[in-house]
């Protein structure tokens, strides 16, 4: 009897470890049902930088390179990239036998057309494309990219999956021009093909049987991709509680962006696994209007930073401390651009009396600090309320202005006459400093001091990682000197997945990148 008990315990532990490790055997079939919080604007990921959009689109489209779990670029549709000794001519060999979802084989002309359109209109192309002098097809499977000067993060740009150079058929990109591709033109090379977009309801993808996967080990978006599920269906479920109840009821297999304080509702439910997305996190921030008004005074910005208690701000936005951490660095620990010694003595000072003195010394005379925020971005709104009270306590004259998201975006981006001092937002991890939008003089905040102008050029010209990292540290030092934005910390999102989904989603086996992806998962 005792032996039987021991055997049962051993077998039980073995089974439990299998479950924990997500180590069940892959099998084909079924529909993966995912509830996302809002309906995407477009799946044309050359044009959009939305995370919701990317979560769906990265199952359909691929680029020449893709990021592994460490955000290092790896060949995807390319087999490799050779740079000539001058570093200005990049020869890209593309894979043969890769088929678009319309059955047509991908050729160099498709790559040239896609890169050209992305270069002209793409969301993240500007820094690279300003250096591109030509892009040509050398033969059916070779593309040559000619630059005016070396560009260190070239493969990183080609791998970027947020507003990056995804490869589409030539005819479709030429027809689309600078408009987003219409749904009928969602033709990619990925493991799933686009089937249907039912407005207000769902987007349906199904396995593409002619998909040709790499056979290198899976890591992040790179390596082997297996479409085990027959279909992926993405439902638009705006209500947080509806997503929560939906996964509890078995209506959905995976739900995103559950408010952190609802975690208790699923704890103890053996059918649901909570996933904390902390690699990478998102970074809540207040953009600062560096272009005009009171915030062109660096002393006043430093005083505002001194007033802020980041713990209270993060608590207001993200609740339980297991869902956030304080971090003055632009990037989170674990990202290779993380700068651990940043902001010491400047970040999270939380000293309103000192801030008041600093502001007076800087010449502050009660000018209004206009804070704008979108009321439907709950975390940002909550943080704006707390920041308002902390700045008021330090003697600032603060006006909190709440808008709907579209109005907020319009006001935030009004470059000619921005009527705000702080705009609450957040940013996602970028794989390279040159993709950090806040370094761009045209991005909201309009940081364009003489020193940043020099540094952002230099960081793009260098090719050695060590040298680039040192330059990035200089930029971060300048960040805490000129305060182009107020970074509050790192925030982790809560997603939920049914425990009968195999593949180790959210573990080291299937690292959730900037946006999720659903190949290499199966139904147990």
């Amino acid at each position: 009897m005792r032996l039987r008990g021991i055997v049962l315990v051993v077998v039980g532990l073995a089974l439990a470890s299998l479950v924990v490790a997500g180590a069940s055997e892959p099998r084909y079939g079924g529909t993966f049902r995912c509830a996302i919080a809002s309906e995407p604007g477009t799946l044309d990921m050359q044009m959009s930088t939305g995370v919701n959009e990317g979560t769906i689109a990265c199952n359909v489209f691929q680029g020449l390179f893709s990021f592994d779990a460490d955000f290092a670029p790896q060949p995807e549709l390319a087999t490799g990239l050779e740079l000539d000794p001058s570093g200005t001519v990049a020869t890209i060999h593309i894979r043969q036998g890769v088929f678009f979802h319309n059955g047509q084989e991908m050729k160099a002309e498709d790559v040239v057309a896609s890169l050209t359109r992305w270069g002209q209109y793409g969301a993240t192309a500007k820094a690279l494309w300003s250096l591109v002098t030509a892009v040509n097809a050398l033969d059916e499977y070779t593309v040559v990219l000619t630059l005016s000067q070396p560009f260190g993060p070239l493969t990183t740009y080609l791998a970027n999956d947020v507003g990056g150079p995804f490869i589409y058929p030539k005819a479709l990109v030429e027809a689309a021009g600078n408009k987003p591709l219409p749904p009928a033109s969602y033709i990619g090379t990925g493991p799933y093909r686009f089937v249907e977009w039912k407005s207000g309801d769902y987007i349906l993808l199904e396995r593409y049987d002619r998909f040709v996967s790499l056979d290198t080990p899976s890591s992040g978006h790179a390596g082997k991709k297996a479409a085990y599920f027959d279909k992926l269906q993405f439902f638009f479920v705006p209500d947080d509680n509806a997503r929560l109840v939906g996964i509890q009821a078995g209506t959905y297999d995976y739900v995103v962006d559950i408010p952190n304080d609802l975690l208790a509702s699923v704890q103890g439910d053996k059918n649901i696994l909570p996933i904390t997305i902390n690699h990478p996190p998102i970074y809540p921030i207040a953009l600062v209007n560096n272009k005009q008004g009171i915030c062109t005074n660096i002393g006043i910005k430093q005083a505002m930073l001194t007033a802020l208690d980041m713990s209270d701000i993060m608590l207001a936005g993200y609740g339980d401390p297991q869902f956030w951490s304080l971090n003055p660095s632009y990037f989170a620990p674990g990202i290779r651009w993380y700068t651990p010694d940043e902001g010491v003595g400047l970040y999270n000072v939380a000293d309103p009396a000192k801030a008041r003195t600093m502001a007076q010394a800087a010449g502050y005379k009660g000018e209004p600090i206009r804070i704008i925020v979108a009321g439907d971005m709950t975390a940002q709104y909550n943080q704006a309320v707390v920041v308002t009270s902390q700045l008021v306590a330090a003697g600032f004259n603060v006006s909190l202005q709440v808008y709907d998201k579209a109005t907020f975006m319009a006001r935030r981006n009004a470059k000619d006459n921005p009527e705000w001092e702080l705009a609450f937002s957040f940013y996602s991890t970028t794989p390279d400093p040159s993709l950090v939008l806040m370094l761009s003089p045209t991005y909201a905040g309009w940081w364009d001091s003489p020193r940043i102008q020099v540094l952002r050029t230099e960081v793009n010209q260098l090719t050695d990682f060590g040298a680039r990292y040192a330059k990035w540290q200089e930029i971060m030092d300048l960040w805490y000197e000129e305060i182009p934005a107020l970074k509050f910390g790192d925030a982790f999102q809560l997603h939920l997945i049914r425990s009968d989904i195999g593949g180790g989603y959210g573990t080291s086996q299937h690292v959730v990148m900037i946006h999720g992806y659903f190949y290499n998962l199966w139904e147990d």
Partner: protein
Amino acid sequence: MGPYLLRRGAGMLVSCVLVITITFLLMELIPGDPAAVLLGPDATPEQVDALRASWGLDRPGIVRYGFYIRNILRGELGRSVFLDQPVLKMIGERAETSLLLGLLSLLVVVGLGVSAGITAALRPRTWTDSALLFVALLGASLPSFWLGLMLMIAFAGRLHWFPSSGFSSIFGAGGLANLRNLVLPALSLGFVNAALVARTSRSSMLDVLQAEYVTTARAKGLAENVVIAKHALRNAAIPILTVVSFTFASLVSGAVVTENVFALPGVGSLIVQSVLKRDYPTIQGVMLAVAIFYVLVNFATDMLYAFLDPRIRYR
């Protein structure tokens, strides 16, 4: 009848032109544009400007208004800037959900509201009357989203009797069984809206039951159920019909919160999503469709008045 229909048609046309114009002006007045929403928070202003220009949004408002009116006269409502689909097709897809939700909710509204109102009127100032009035007050006070969430948690999350959210066409896979998805939203919408109908039914019936012709009917020895059904209810029906018809119109086009909670692809959520995204062609198209729907419901109500009360004649 002919002149009456002509007058109604002209009135409907004026209503629609007003709706189109007011919607257009409102969208001109509020900040925000679809390009910024579509391109996401990381887009540069140059990108946003280029996309706006490609959609023609950089043209003066009066020019765009002229184009829009011209397209309507050609029978085109335009295309959604986000989905690149004809707005008319999108409205058609959403209309099924909204109409079915509206009809199911109406069943709850009429079933609960009218029967509760009549029951309360037949037993005025009794325990039954007080209890029904209390329930009606409760219904009017409950936010529909809260009731919807409670129903969802209980019947979808715990008991698994109904799906938690979403809806697929009854003409597709699943057929009529897909109506199960609308049971919880219809209950939450119906219960909240039944309160007004119950109170209207009660007061209307109370008025009629005190009328002399009801006393006469009773004096003639007619059975009580005949007195109520044939003489009282028919005469009390006009105010009830007015409330029910406007409730139906608002259930079909304005169930935004419930559609949001239950992730239903209806017309109400289409309006809100289009406004939030500044999808101008869709906003204008849906508002026009809703205006036409209201006018038609109004017209149908007028016709029903004449059916219920033969003294009413339209000329």
